[in-house]
């Protein structure tokens, strides 16, 4: 074996009951390269990284470091070998300072007493060397997500890790922050660090990676040189067939105003601060209006205000010319509002109910599902559920009686979409409808949303994925700190311009 490789994972096989998560996978990471690991959700990327990080023990295969075999039984072994990881969900203690988070676990001490001064000097030096601009005394809860991520990077650097794993690092960042991260990653490799970059975003691989290994359904598909490949090639490897990146849709033909939001303000739960501040906009039939923005800028509260999950503090919501601001949720649902919620486990489904009961959650009270004495008409429910299951291709282990909990994320989402679209709503509010789904399911859901628009319905889409925003919307509204700071046309704007609005660096005066 050549010692050119920092890490070699050879013929790794990891089985879980009933499933082979990693089937004979080989991954070779060269010194000083950025190696992307590409695959859909459930392709086995996380399992493979967990094996490398000592969280899982593989049944077969071995790991070599600089050509020598090593044992990694737990994360401490990984740390000792200089392997560090930025987890998708940051492992930071919010009420600790940046410095405390960095030294946690490897605290410099005398007889157990902390010696923070020398640690601070080291952190400041590292921060300067790699251009991270992190204040060691700031509290984690007070700094931006991008800054938190850089704290995680500093954690690895402080431990003098040489192999850095980034697990889906760009999901929470603005386009500008992503550029900055890419820049930092290149700096790191110049200093001799080797990087494993887990992602499903092809643009980022093309931009920053040297090599890319692709996994599909637990199997190793291949490793390619990024310079000699294309996005199409990579996506074919990832999905196993050609993928349409472009959502096919015709020019929008908006007609009457369906939803009119007037000077709406909403407070988030338990706070008096306005999470949505004086927001006005309109959505017409036959168009998809998209609310773009970084997570936590009031999108969630805006949707809660529209759907009735949170009380409205000020302003009005008008649907089809009727003021629904104070209307009960049931009346909104029956009156033509459909909602595909952000958190499908919390607001979309009753996880321990069967699929059929979930499908009638909003219409169980209709005479065809319940008789005059309050008993459910199970037969009608079953027939109705089977119709929807067939029509929307919802797949599950036992059909209509499958517990929602045991279904895959994509099929749970399909079930929600079946229920919401079958109501034939005037207005469809879809919040992050493709989160955590694989490419096939995403294509399907996008086509359903476009189909609603083409049936002359109004669609309000809230998404954090810029690609989705650009592909689906007919108009884009950017939300920043609870306000709408810009209205953009997806045909004339760029992702970069969108990013400036999302980060609050740009805003326009608008009138509705």
């Amino acid at each position, binding site marked *: 074996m050549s010692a050119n490789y920092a890490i070699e994972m050879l013929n790794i096989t990891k089985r879980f009951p009933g499933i082979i998560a990693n089937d004979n996978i080989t991954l070779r990471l060269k010194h000083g390269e950025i190696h992307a690991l590409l695959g859909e959700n459930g392709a086995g990327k996380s399992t493979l990284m967990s094996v490398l990080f000592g969280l899982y023990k593989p049944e077969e295969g071995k790991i070599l470091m600089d050509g020598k075999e090593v044992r990694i039984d737990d994360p401490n072994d990984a740390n000792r070998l200089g392997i560090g990881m930025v987890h998708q969900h940051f492992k*930071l203690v919010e009420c600790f300072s940046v410095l405390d988070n960095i030294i*946690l676990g490897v605290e410099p001490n005398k007889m157990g007493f902390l010696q923070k001064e020398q640690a601070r000097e080291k952190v400041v030096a590292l921060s300067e060397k790699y251009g991270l601009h992190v204040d060691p005394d700031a509290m984690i809860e007070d700094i931006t997500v991008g800054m938190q991520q850089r704290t995680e990077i500093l954690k690895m650097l402080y431990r003098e890790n040489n192999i850095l794993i980034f697990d889906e690092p760009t999901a929470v960042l603005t386009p500008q922050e992503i550029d900055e991260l890419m820049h930092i990653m290149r700096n790191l490799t110049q200093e001799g660090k080797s990087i494993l970059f887990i992602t499903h975003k092809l643009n980022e691989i093309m931009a920053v990676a040297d090599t890319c290994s692709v996994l599909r359904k637990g199997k190793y598909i291949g490793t390619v040189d990024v310079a000699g490949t294309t996005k199409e090639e990579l996506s074919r490897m990832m999905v196993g067939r050609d993928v349409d990146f472009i959502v096919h849709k015709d020019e929008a033909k908006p007609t009457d105003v369906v939803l009119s939001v007037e000077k709406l303000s909403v407070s988030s739960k338990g706070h008096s601060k306005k999470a949505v501040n004086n927001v006005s906009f309109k959505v017409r039939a036959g168009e998809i209006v998209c609310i773009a923005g970084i997570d936590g800028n009031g999108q969630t509260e805006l949707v809660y205000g529209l759907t009735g999950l949170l009380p409205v503090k000020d302003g009005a919501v008008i649907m089809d010319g009727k003021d629904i601001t104070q209307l009960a949720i049931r009346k909104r649902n029956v009156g033509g509002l459909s909602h595909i919620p952000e958190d499908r486990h919390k607001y979309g489904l009753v996880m321990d109910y069967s699929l059929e009961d979930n499908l009638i959650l909003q219409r169980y009270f209709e005479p065809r599902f319940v008789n005059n004495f309050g008993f459910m008409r199970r037969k009608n429910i079953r027939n109705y559920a089977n119709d929807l299951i067939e029509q929307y291709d919802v797949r599950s282990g036992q059909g209509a009686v499958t517990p929602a909990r045991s279904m895959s994320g994509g099929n749970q989402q399909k079930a929600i979409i079946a229920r919401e679209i079958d109501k034939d709503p005037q207005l469809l509010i879809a919040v992050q409808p493709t989160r955590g789904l694989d490419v096939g399911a995403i294509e399907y859901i996008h086509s359903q949303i476009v189909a609603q628009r083409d049936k002359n319905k109004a669609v309000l889409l809230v998404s954090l994925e810029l690609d989705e925003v650009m592909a689906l919307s007919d108009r884009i509204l950017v939300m920043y700190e609870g306000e709408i700071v810009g209205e953009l046309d997806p045909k004339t704007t760029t992702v970069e311009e969108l990013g400036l609005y999302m980060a609050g660096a740009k805003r326009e005066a608008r009138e509705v």
Partner: protein
Amino acid sequence: MILLLQYTIIFAAVLLLVALGGAFAEHSGVINIGLEGIMVIGALGGALAMSKINIEYGGFVIVVSTIVASAAAGLIFSLFLAVAAINFKADQTITGTAMNMLATAGSTVAVKAMNTAASGGSDVSSAIRYINQKQFFIHRFGDFEFSWFMLVAVIALVVAYIVMYKTRFGLRLRACGEHPQAADSVGINVYKMRYAGVLISGVLGGLGGITFITTGVSEWKFENGVVGFGFLALAVMIFGAWDPLRIAGAAVIFGLFRALGNVHTGIPLLEHLGIPGAVYNMLPYIVSLLVLAFTSKRSRAPKAEGIPYDKGLR
């Protein structure tokens, strides 16, 4: 007035010890509702040591062995919570409640059995007497009765502050209560840290228990448990925002209210008001209700407290 000061300090010492114990458990991520029960068992251990050790060994032996016995008894009893909550991932509130019931009932039965056996059936009370031994804990400075337990509480406060904020152990402990996954990812054994937190609360709770039953009386009836002082200490801990120094402040305030119940007859102004004594006795409990009602909304408890840590769930 000196009497008021003296009682305030001694009750504050009780609340301080127990609330610090609660803070250690909660900073590690375990809610310790069982502090009341731990106090009872600690009191039992201390009282037994006091009454059983031959008085001729002298003051030093008795003071030290009483302190050690109560701390050890509290520590052993807190193992209940540690094993149930950490190893078996049981519901911490229910475990704590069970401990509280078990402690009072168990110690009542045990003391009654001991008294019955020792007296040949003429004494079936649940009381342990220690009137002579108690003298060793007290030094008089004029009218002020200084108790060694006051010193124990002050030492506990200083040590707790240093351990919590200045040591590696404290940093790791707090990380386990806020974000155990983060602690685990940097190689900290969350289970061990939580054991440490709970056992420390056992030691401090036990010390609080013996301090409490020796505050004024020369015997203690175990069927009374510790009359809710464990819960009062939890209120002190919350009011003190889980921070040793603020807990000390809160303990003094609550201690003052409790002391008024003991000495209000000696203060002319309060005596003239003609308010029944029961009202003064109720004061600390009413105050804790009010305080919690108004402060709990913005209180910042350790984020992961009460949630059993499961390595498998990441």
